[in-house]
């Protein structure tokens, strides 16, 4: 069923790291920004400053996670469309590799890279930011996995329908990034005007942010059943639609 999955996944990771900006752009750059900002702010951020800690404690880790996940999605969209345009998908398809194997391999590559950059961010964060370390790491990882898979499925739907590789990245960005201001990352949902609250409730990212923030703060999963259900529904719908409209060439 998934013959060749591990080999293909490992191969794709190696190929990705050979890209001129592959490793640097995806994994090291966010950490670098994090460290530089950490050094600049370092003196001013003390656990005592109440205004800062709310954002630093919960907002920043979730923001970092969401941004890393979004960039993974965009890179997935781009890679799939480049592979399609270059006839690579078609060539792979004329082998015993099943379609789901090829696509799963790409998702696994993106997940692996996301995990790698987040682990580095956490390590860097421990050094520069006064964040409490008693965070439910496993729970947060699960929440992040669910959120990322859900956002990746949106990416796949975009990858299924973008006409050419040149448009893949901009179209993906145009769909995903406008969700950021309304998803509760910067401004709590309750303080948005009612109309925007309605918009926010229609955005998958809102549920991801709510879940991530909640779990990071140590809230129980039972309080976030709704978020999980929404993310799973998005995943199921986008995956089903992609399977219908995906073009191999």
């Amino acid at each position, binding site marked *: 069923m998934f013959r060749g999955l591990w*080999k293909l996944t490992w191969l794709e990771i190696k190929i990705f790291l050979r890209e001129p900006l592959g490793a640097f752009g995806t994994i090291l750059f966010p950490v670098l920004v994090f460290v530089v900002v950490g050094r600049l702010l370092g003196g001013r951020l003390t656990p005592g400053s109440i205004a800062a800690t709310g954002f630093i404690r919960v907002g920043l880790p979730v923001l970092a996670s969401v941004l890393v996940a979004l960039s993974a999605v965009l890179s997935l969209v781009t890679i799939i469309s480049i592979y399609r345009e270059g006839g*690579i998908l*078609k060539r792979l398809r004329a082998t015993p590799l099943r379609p789901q194997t090829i696509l799963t391999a790409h998702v696994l590559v993106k997940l692996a890279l996301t995990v790698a950059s987040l682990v580095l961010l956490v390590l860097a964060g421990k050094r520069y930011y006064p964040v409490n370390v008693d965070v439910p790491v496993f729970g947060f990882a699960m929440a992040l996995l669910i959120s990322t898979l859900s956002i990746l499925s949106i990416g796949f739907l975009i990858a299924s329908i973008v006409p050419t590789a040149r448009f893949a990245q901009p179209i993906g960005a145009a769909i995903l990034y406008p969700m950021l201001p309304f998803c509760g990352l910067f401004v709590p949902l309750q303080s948005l005007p009612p109309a925007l609250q309605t918009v926010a409730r229609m955005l998958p990212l809102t549920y991801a942010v709510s879940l991530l923030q909640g779990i990071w703060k140590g809230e129980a999963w039972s309080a976030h059943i709704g978020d999980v259900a929404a993310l799973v529904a998005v995943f199921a719908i986008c995956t089903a639609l992609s399977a219908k409209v995906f073009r191999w060439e």
Partner: protein
Amino acid sequence: MGVFGTSGQVIQVSGIRKTYGSTVAVSDVSFEVSEGEIFGLIGPNGAGKTTTMECVEGVRRPDQGAVSILGLDPYRDMYQLQNSIGVQLQEAQLQKRIKVWEALDLWASLYPKTVDGDRLLEQLGLAGKRNAWFMTLSGGQKQRLFIALALINDPEVVFLDELTTGLDPQSRRAIWELVRDIRDRGKTVLMTTHLMEEAERLCDRVAIIEHGKIIDIGSPAELVRRHCPTRTVILATGNELAEERLRAMPSLETLTRQDSQFTIQGRGDEFVTEVIHCLAENRIRVTDFRTLLPNLEDVFLKLTGHSIRD
């Protein structure tokens, strides 16, 4: 009967049709390929060769008609069939930065039975490029890698689509040699080409396709005999009696003379022999003697009214 069903044919295509929107790419195409044969689909670009090929390979599903390879339906039984076929797609690419050995290794991991990848690279003259990225290979090297990938599972049937397009004559000849080797190892080859010379040198039989239809099928020599029976002899002689004697030949059709050079045409395989007889009987000494044999290019021109390059 064995694995090939009752007919003894490795590939059977009957009445397939494929349309894209309102464009009919292929209509009512039928042919059969026997074991150990190199069969060529020939025709100009856009004639429907690749569509036909992809329907046979199972990459596409024909709207109508049936295809059988080794007794299986390539679309329905794709995964079962893939172990016994090797495919080289037209204008395919691999990941830019995949290494030659990595591609072979990945492909090899997908099949239950494989041949030795390093030996294959050696045979294809790619051993020195084992660690090279795909993007750094020349056109000929890429094609040879694709041949290697098509052969890694030791297939019974190999599909080669526009194998030598864009290659220089030297690489082209090297690849022809490889394809003959494939056949000599008992494999069946279905290939497409728009190069008549390639078809003539490689194919045991060809199907001429134009506008999505097969116009005729046969060995290159058969097709030439059938459609272009005229033979041309060019000879040079100072003998004043030559013109009169040559004109007396019953099979002669036309004769044109330019000083001492004669261009004469007649029908049938025997024509050249008759000319030689005539020269010998009349003791006509010649300083030049050439025969121009019609080729597939001429057959195509005759059948379609235009050259394949138009």
